[in-house]
């Protein structure tokens, strides 16, 4: 029963997508109702399944699972691919935070796209609405998004992709969900497609993630090669993992398990925007802000980390090269992106880099084996980062309102022209503050503290290098968060638009408020039992959910399990409980509070037109950071330009046009000669007969070329048939003799 419901969960939003595009696209209210109603169905299903799963005594041993055949195997049935659902602790956790954020952001989008507002006379599809002067008012008022219903269709399709991915028990449908989300991301980044920047950003996002996707596809091929299946249960079967860990991969120093884990990690790096494929996410901010919140912060980008956690036993079995790569990439990305975020001036780009950085924490955590901590942070991050983006959208909306009120064009995303919004938008400010503190890891109170602290504690116990890097990144995180809050909300308004900003509609405020509650309190469900004083006051639900077997699945453990032949049913493996350390906790406190304080001190008195204080401190390095460390330029020179050159010059011009066609034309010019040569040179009678046909064909072609302008098709047909018949007759005659 529960399995059937789990099967059905992703489908209502898909239906909504189809219904809106095919039938209700002209009716805004109806389309909204369809999208939200269908999502509500899915959310109910998700809650029923989650509740059922939580009541299951031994969820790890008895996950809710069911599958059906999808691609038949070979004649003997081997290699068949089955698809189905799999609900265990990780699924439940992910399903819950996905359902909450999806629903909140659907509601928020209604307000964000100005549902109920008049249509703007100058608005065109493909550009954000300019506002309307309807109603006799001389001032502009917000106007409804021209492609309002299309937006809901797209995010419904997106919801389908995400839910499908989360519930999959196999890499086939997981990959389908993965790519469907990629398509939605492309379509929604390019939602205002008439802007050149949006068009470029959409293509960039799709292509950069596609690098990871094609590598991931090879990872799927490797999985299939060994387990003859794409089911996670069979891939992660210890026997299979042991086989993969023992097999060579063809790459020196890498087992088959290692190569597979690295290829899947490449998929994660693309989807979760990790260095070196992180460059698409900041540009993805061209999309409407609900999209940034939903796809590029809370859900889709976390799919990469989810994949890593879902296949955690494989990563463990793969051992050092793969886990080290994950730890390095994650930690480096966390620090790099946090540093870049320091210098951003666009309110959304700060958050984009912050997302990259936080995802780096999770990848690094997976690399050091702290899977539970990574999953915990994944969920908490979805809440507080979704909230921050919604808050940012609210700020942009508010400033936009102010700009319209004043009748001037302002860059409504530039934090330098904001300031003082705390007074104008108190609800947004409070919520943003909650999200920001959670992101900065404000001790004890916020969700972000508990999850980040768990990662730091795990790093403290496993790898000093990772710990130092992540702690430094945490300091920067707290600093840029304080900078952002100070620049946007504190001080005095630095533009007329900011001075007249107004709180947005309730459609937008309600979801923000809900997420704010989650961003603070959700973390309390994961307080470690061994934490002084607070530990055990609230039972550690996260731990219980994700930590069923509590056994690290190292290569040795796999071999061990092989001997005992125990079926391993928990897909999520986790290391031993992290011992508590005061030193790690002190560092955690220090970087968070220190960063926040420092940021507040430096930016609380920021003046309009003033040089950024950091710029004075860092000099040219600031510009370098502001430009995202110039990775875009680097890749353009290293990859984009050479690829263009190869495609345009080498392949199209040289190979196809000059060499291949050139040879062909030369042959064509010599056709008559070749015909004679064939006839005289090769004395096999059969070939002789064939050569006659070539000569005949050439002659005929020549004749046709001459009379091409006559246009008498009947004649050609006749000639063609005649020649054809003659050839056939010659052939028959040859054979009879």
């Amino acid at each position, binding site marked *: 029963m529960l399995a059937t419901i789990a099967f059905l969960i992703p489908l209502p939003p898909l239906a909504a997508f189809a219904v809106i595009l095919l039938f209700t696209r002209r009716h805004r209210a109806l389309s909204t109702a369809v999208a939200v109603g269908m999502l509500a169905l899915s959310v109910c299903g998700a809650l029923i399944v989650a509740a059922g799963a939580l009541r299951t005594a031994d969820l790890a041993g008895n996950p809710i699972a069911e599958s059906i055949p*999808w691609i038949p195997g*070979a004649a003997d049935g*081997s290699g068949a691919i089955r698809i189905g659902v799999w609900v265990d602790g990780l699924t439940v956790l992910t399903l819950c935070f996905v359902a909450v954020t999806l629903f909140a952001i659907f509601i928020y989008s209604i307000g964000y796209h100005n549902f109920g507002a008049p249509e703007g006379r100058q608005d065109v599809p493909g550009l954000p609405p300019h506002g309307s002067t309807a109603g006799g008012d001389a001032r502009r008022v917000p106007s409804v998004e021209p492609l309002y219903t299309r937006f809901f269709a797209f995010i419904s399709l997106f919801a389908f992709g995400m839910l499908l991915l989360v519930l999959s028990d196999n890499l086939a449908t997981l990959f389908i969900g993965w790519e469907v989300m990629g398509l939605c991301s492309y379509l929604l980044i390019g939602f205002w497609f008439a802007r050149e920047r949006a068009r470029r950003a959409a293509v960039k996002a799709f292509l950069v993630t596609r690098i990871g996707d094609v590598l991931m596809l090879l990872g799927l091929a490797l999985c299939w090669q060994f387990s003859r299946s794409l089911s996670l249960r069979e891939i992660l079967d210890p026997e299979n993992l042991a086989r993969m860990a023992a097999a060579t991969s063809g790459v020196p120093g890498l087992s088959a398990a290692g190569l597979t884990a690295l290829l899947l990690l490449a998929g994660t790096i693309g989807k979760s925007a990790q260095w070196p494929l992180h460059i698409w996410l900041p540009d993805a901010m061209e999309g409407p802000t609900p999209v940034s919140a939903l796809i590029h912060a809370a859900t889709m980008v976390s799919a990469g980390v989810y994949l890593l956690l879902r296949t955690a036993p494989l990563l463990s079995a793969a051992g050092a090269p793969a886990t080290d790569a994950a730890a390095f990439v994650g930690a480096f990305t966390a620090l790099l992106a946090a540093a870049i975020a320091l210098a951003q001036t666009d309110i959304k780009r700060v958050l984009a880099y912050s997302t990259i950085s936080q995802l780096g924490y999770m990848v690094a955590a997976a690399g050091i084996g702290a899977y539970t901590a990574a999953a915990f942070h994944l969920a908490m991050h979805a809440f507080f980062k979704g909230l921050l983006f919604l808050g940012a959208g609210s700020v942009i909306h508010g400033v936009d309102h102010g700009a319209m009120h004043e009748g001037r064009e302002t860059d409504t995303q530039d934090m330098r022209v904001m300031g003082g919004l705390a007074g104008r938008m108190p609800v947004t400010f409070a919520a943003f503050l909650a999200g920001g503190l959670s992101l900065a890891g404000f001790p004890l109170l916020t969700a972000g503290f508990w999850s980040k602290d768990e990662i730091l504690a795990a790093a403290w116990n496993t790898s000093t290098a990772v710990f130092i890097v992540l702690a430094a990144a945490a300091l920067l995180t707290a600093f840029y968060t304080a900078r952002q809050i100070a620049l946007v909300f504190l001080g005095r308004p630095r533009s007329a638009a900011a001075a007249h900003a107004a709180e947005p509609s309730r459609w937008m405020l309600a979801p923000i408020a809900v997420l704010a509650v989650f961003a603070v309190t959700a973390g309390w469900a994961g307080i470690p039992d061994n934490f002084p004083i607070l530990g055990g006051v609230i039972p550690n639900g996260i731990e219980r959910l994700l930590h069923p077997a509590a056994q690290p699945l190292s290569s040795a453990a796999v071999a061990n399990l092989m001997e005992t032949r125990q079926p391993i049913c928990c897909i999520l493996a986790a290391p031993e409980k992290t011992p508590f350390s005061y030193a790690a906790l002190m560092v955690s406190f220090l970087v968070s509070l220190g960063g926040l304080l420092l940021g507040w001190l430096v930016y609380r008195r920021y003046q309009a037109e003033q040089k950024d204080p950091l710029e004075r401190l860092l000099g040219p390095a600031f510009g370098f950071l502001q430009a995202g460390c110039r990775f875009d330029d680097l890749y353009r020179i290293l990859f984009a330009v050479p690829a263009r050159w*190869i495609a345009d010059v080498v392949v199209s011009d040289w190979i196809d046009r000059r060499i291949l066609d050139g040879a062909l034309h030369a042959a064509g010019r010599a056709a008559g000669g070749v015909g004679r040569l064939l006839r005289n040179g090769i004395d096999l009678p059969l*070939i002789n007969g064939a050569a006659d046909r070539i000569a005949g064909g050439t002659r005929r072609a020549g004749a046709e070329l001459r009379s*091409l302008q006559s246009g008498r098709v009947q004649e050609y*047909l006749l000639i063609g048939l005649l020649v054809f018949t003659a050839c056939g007759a010659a052939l028959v005659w040859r054979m009879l003799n």
Partner: protein
Amino acid sequence: MENVELIVTDFILDHLLSLILWTPALAAALLFLLPGRERILKAFAIGASLVPLVLSVILWAAYDGAAAGFQFEERLTWYAAIGSDYHLAADGLSIPLVLLTTLITPLALVVAANVREPRPGPAVAGRGKARIFLALFLLLETGMLGVFLSMDLLLFFIFWEVGLVPMFFLIQQWGGEKRDYAALKFLLYTMGASLGFLLAIQVIRLAAGSFDLPSLYASWPALAEGTLFGLPLSTVKALAFWGLTIAFAVKVPLWPFHTWLPDAHTEAPTAGSMILAGVLLKLGGYGFIRLVLPLFPDEIGQFAPALAVLAVAAIVLGALAAWSQNDFKRLVAYSSVNHMGFVILGVAAAALAGAETAAGSFALRGAVLQMFTHGLSAAGMFLLVGALYDRTHTRDLEELGGLFPRAPVYGGILIFTAMASLGLPGLGGFVSEVMVILGSWRVFPLLTGIAMIGLFFTGAYILKAIGKVLHGALPKRWKDASLEIGLRERLAMAPLMILLLAIGVWPVWILKMIGTAMR
């Protein structure tokens, strides 16, 4: 009454393949008896082309999957003197391709709007042109179906050549600016390659004493002793192998025999391009699987790596070439080189791994499915390119752009079809490509890895096309143009899109059919 019905049903089922095969040819002849109004002619041609479609669906339904093998056999002594029979049969390999042919032909006829004005100039005799266009089209259908249904090598060859002539005229009479060059290139290239084909079937006939495919399957691969014209049989076999391989490689087309394709596809009229990309290229892939794989297992096993290298070259270089095009139609044309590379990669992998292994079975079924799904998506893409050209009279991507608001439905359909072509999971192309990749990874890991570069650039050229047509700012000249896709084109796109989605979501039904041929 019931008796009559029974007799009719029996007759149809007994002669199903002949009916499918000859209905279009018969209709082509009947066209010349009809009055000259174009509307009547077209309606008749479309109606006639629906008959084989319905019969193909019956064929699919009536095929006994449990029994597998060749069914609906028809055999008549045709040319006893040389031992060639009129021998037709269908199996799980040919039935999907027959359905593809009989499906795309009516769809192409539906959108063939401008048949009345083939080529400007004083010499045009406007009257009667539509008649010939439609007749050629139906003849072409018979030619292609004949290849898929023939169980006799000579018959196979004749139908192979029959398909060539109408296509030549379709390009040369109704084509674009460089039609003469393109048509001649197409004709000479394919004809030249057919020489090897002709040679091959003759030496097979002389060495094995038969044109009959089922009996050759049994005897020819085992044949090891003997000489022909003083040549040892191994040499003869190698000769025949290369003759067939090159003929089919040109048709597929395999790199480096592909340069006829962009010209022919670009210059052909929309309906012609649909058939070219949708069906004609599949003749090559079909030839590989029907003739080369079973008849020359040793030879193809030996040369499979070389074939795989060329296939990967087609995948990668085809994608790169497509990416560098600024002519929308040429871009789509090059995409065929890219996609058909997967067919040959699958064939090569199956040849090396053995079609009965899991890897080989996946690769080969993937290759067949790829032919089917590429047929659907390529025909759809050419239809859409043609629809746009009819309204804008340009195919230059630099002149287009920002058309989405002017043509939202067209845009949606274009994105859907382009994504199917890109291999987006959930649509048909993904299933076939992933099956080929899973299968060939086992055999050619490095080459499969390199093929991923091609898969990446598939994304690049598809997004380039979508971006340059639909996205960006709307140029002034299209501000008031009416660009939305018409009802007729929507009707023609619908079955293609439904099938692409059906295969992508639930591939079992078609893979079961294909699987029966792989036992």
